[in-house]
């Protein structure tokens, strides 16, 4: 695991948390983002495959972000429900300019130290952490 840079409300880890009301999230915030109750359970999903729920290729990217930037919302199955996360897909998700990942495909998390170039980004590099997991298609 890479250490987080400050408490920015966005975990660089892939740890699902469950609140007292049963909501799952990847939050590292102080309470459940949906209902405000205490977070009590943690499960590391960094070695777990997830299923693509939605995917896109961002083709007009901001300064400091790769072009194109394939992205997906991925759902992970847990014992009593599911948890979802939106993030970058690995480069091989785009071939000859076309997205080759679609809803229902399996992907696995791959850690990347820096997801975008902070020198080019509007937000200052000290504003938050920049590492995180991309999702790689499982062949």
């Amino acid at each position, binding site marked *: 695991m890479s250490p987080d840079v400050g408490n920015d409300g966005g975990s660089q880890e892939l740890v699902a948390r469950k609140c007292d009301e049963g909501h799952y*999230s990847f939050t590292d915030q102080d309470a459940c983002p949906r209902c405000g109750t205490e977070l009590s359970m943690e499960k590391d999903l960094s070695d777990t495959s997830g299923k693509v729920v939605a995917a896109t*290729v*961002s083709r007009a990217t901001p300064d400091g972000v790769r072009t194109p930037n394939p992205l997906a*919302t991925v759902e992970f199955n847990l014992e009593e429900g599911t948890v979802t996360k*939106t*993030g970058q897909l690995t480069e091989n998700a785009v071939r000859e300019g076309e997205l080759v990942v679609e809803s229902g495909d399996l992907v696995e998390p791959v850690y990347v130290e820096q*997801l975008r170039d902070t020198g080019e980004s509007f*937000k200052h590099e000290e504003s938050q952490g920049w590492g995180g997991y991309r999702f790689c298609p499982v062949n």
Partner: protein
Amino acid sequence: MAYVVSTGMTGFGDRDESLGELMALAANHCIENSDVDRNGIDGLVASNALGGEMGMQTGVQNYLSSRLGINGYSRRVGQTSAGGAAAFKEGCSLVDSGKDDVVLVVGGEKMTHLGTSRSSDVISSVIHPDEYRHGLTMPAFAGLVADLYINETDATRKDLARVAVENHGKALRNPDAQFGKDLSEEDVLNSPLVADPLRLYDFCPTTDGAAAVLMVSDDRLREDLESGASHGVSRVAAVAGTNDTHAVHDRDTPLSLKAVRESRRDAYQEAGISTEDIDVLELHDMFTALELIQLEDLGFYNHGKGWRYVRREEDNGSSDGSSDGTTGDGDVPVINPSGGLKARGHPLAATGLAQIVELHRQITNEAGERTVNDASVGVACNLAGYGNAAITTVMDEPGVER
């Protein structure tokens, strides 16, 4: 109870004026259109999302009060792209509480000077850090939502194109709109891909512009009317705002916006209306699919059925349910007579006020050739980010029984 007695707007588009100049222009139009003397304005509420971040005036409320010659206390209200409605809500609170009798609310944004890449990054800084680090932008969210909407409902890519076509057609009758050209479905479907499956014409443009409204209390309105004032008046029947999670992936689904549903519920309840009472609706259609999702969350269609709006002429209008002040049967009012964000343009913190300006002008029959016949109840929905917050406003014609 607060009443709107005057409105002002700049034209929306790629403009040469600075942020402060744009906001002053709209404010002066609004004051000059009214019977109110500027030194009789008790409070100024300014709305601007990213002025300093975009290299414009920071703390624009102080620039404005000084430039406009308003002695009443000024403040700035922020709620990202829902800043306009948030400022309007603040103005209503000042009047409803009895603190102020006359309040000027002005929203503005200057965006085109930065170029798309930079302005997109500045706007993206409002999203959750966990999403920002992945390079997510508002258009990228839109692409994910549209992919899911098409996969999980019976909506087609062509249905989304029809949303853009409708709004561009309506904007032709709005001289303040950014776009003054018709679009065909083919134009939309052949425009460059921005975030698959969405293309350039699925999105609102980058826009400069400002809008302003002047609101007064019951007492002040009565005094004005007794002294012979003849301006059009609309009533603020309700303004309700609610929030949702900051990170979109923390929600059950991005296809239904809790902030819209709950602000709708509160606003309809406070105003005592149902969807059947609404004559005109201004939506926050930052991208095409969002217009359909809002129609569902505002109660006009059941979940996943909003695409029926663009196929309504081939639809038999069969009802598919009802609940809390909503019909869900596709009986829709006139939507976005202004052209909406899609074609009127979207200067972030001015948009919510531009929606109120449109409702006021519709209710007071001041909307020119786009005036909706006998419109007495209007609703506007203004969103912050992708549903981080939503504000639903109900405006109506004073004294009209429902």
